């Protein structure tokens, strides 16, 4: 079945099986491998991306559900070779250890700051509850989001 979507500003049309998960489509057909597969059960948030302005777990969506959608993945955050301020904060505050959860963390942080530009520490922790860092490096992630809130 044919499915068209715009990903990071580029239009793509592919013929996919209806059972193709969105994350599989992004990684294997579009070769955008910044979106990770962690738990594959909508728990860990490593596959978080932005669909039509809202974060979703792309392991729990079918590619065909995103016909006509406007999608942003971690690869689309930097513009003109310049990191997004949230990425910059994660780099400066060392909001990562192994880095596996980082793309999802950054996109979830984007959603938080978009809805609540001035979050408290509690609000940051609560809004990232759908993203797991198995290195347990949460403290620096929270610091990075606090730092990003002053920039975006």
């Amino acid at each position, binding site marked *: *079945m044919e499915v068209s979507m715009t990903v990071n500003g580029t239009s793509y049309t592919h013929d996919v*099986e*209806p*059972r193709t*998960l969105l994350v*599989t489509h992004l990684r294997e057909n579009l070769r955008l491998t910044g979106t990770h597969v962690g738990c*594959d*059960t*909508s*728990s860990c*948030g490593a596959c*978080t991306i932005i669909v039509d302005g*809202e*974060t*979703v*777990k792309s392991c*729990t*969506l*079918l590619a*065909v*559900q995103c*016909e006509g959608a406007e999608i942003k993945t971690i690869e689309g955050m930097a513009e003109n070779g310049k990191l997004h301020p949230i990425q910059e904060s994660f780099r400066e505050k060392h909001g990562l250890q192994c880095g596996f959860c980082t793309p999802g963390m950054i996109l*979830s942080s984007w*959603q*938080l700051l978009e809805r609540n530009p001035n979050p408290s520490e509690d609000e940051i922790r609560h*809004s990232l*509850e*759908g*993203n797991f860092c198995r290195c347990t490096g949460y403290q620096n992630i929270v610091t990075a989001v606090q730092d990003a809130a002053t920039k975006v």
Partner: protein
Amino acid sequence: MIPESFDYQRAGSVREALALLKQHGDEAKILAGGHSLVPTMKLRLATPGTLIDIGGISELKYINDKGDYLAIGAGTTHWMVESSSLVQQKAPALSQAAAQIGDVQVRNRGTIGGVLAHSDPQADYPGVVLALNATIIAEGSGGERTIEAADYFTGLWETALGDNEILTEVRIPTDSANANSCYLKFPQPASRYPYVGCAVAMDKSGGNCSDVRVGFSGVAESAFRDDGVEDAIRGQALNDDTIAAASAKSAEGRSVLSDYFVSEEYRRAMAQVYAKRALTQLS
């Protein structure tokens, strides 16, 4: 994990979805947000031959004040419910429940109609719509039908929806009890599903409870109104003693779920604790 193969149909309207449902019969499942159905299909616990996707029907996404009731479209996401000032004001229990479902990403996608049609015993909303005395609107080829929440949940993953019907709207009365309502939850720490979810809507006059509705999610095979607690507190003065006595009736005489994490005894005790907290909060 990849679902078994299926045929995918995108419906542009409720009418179109109903026609597709009639055409494909038992083989078909309705897909809304997909946050219960897709995981179930990935585990191959569900293997529908056809998916009819109603997720793109924008006419199903709304929250409207109709005076006597709030009309919430079946395709309204948990985030829309959570962030609606109308719901916060007229039915706080519903917005509190929405805000505690899953996580941000799940709430961006999951829908109120999907939850109620799926009727998972561990879902948050069912006990809330019971306590809020909601009405469910179902559309079939013969037109629209209204189902009282009290008649809607018929068992484990079972509802009063007909095979060829689609849940299109939830109506929440804008009465004074619903304006004084809350939802408290004892969540499974990883999945966030409620071991116990307790919704209470209460009318007060003076220091007395003049009317009350109590609904439980997560406690039994399907959500239920707890008339034992309601009868014990209705007409009583609201104080620690009456609230303790009423909440001790929680799930009395009912078969309560038991699992690896929470035994029947513990779940029953927690139902009492959460009922007590909810009644206290509204007093």
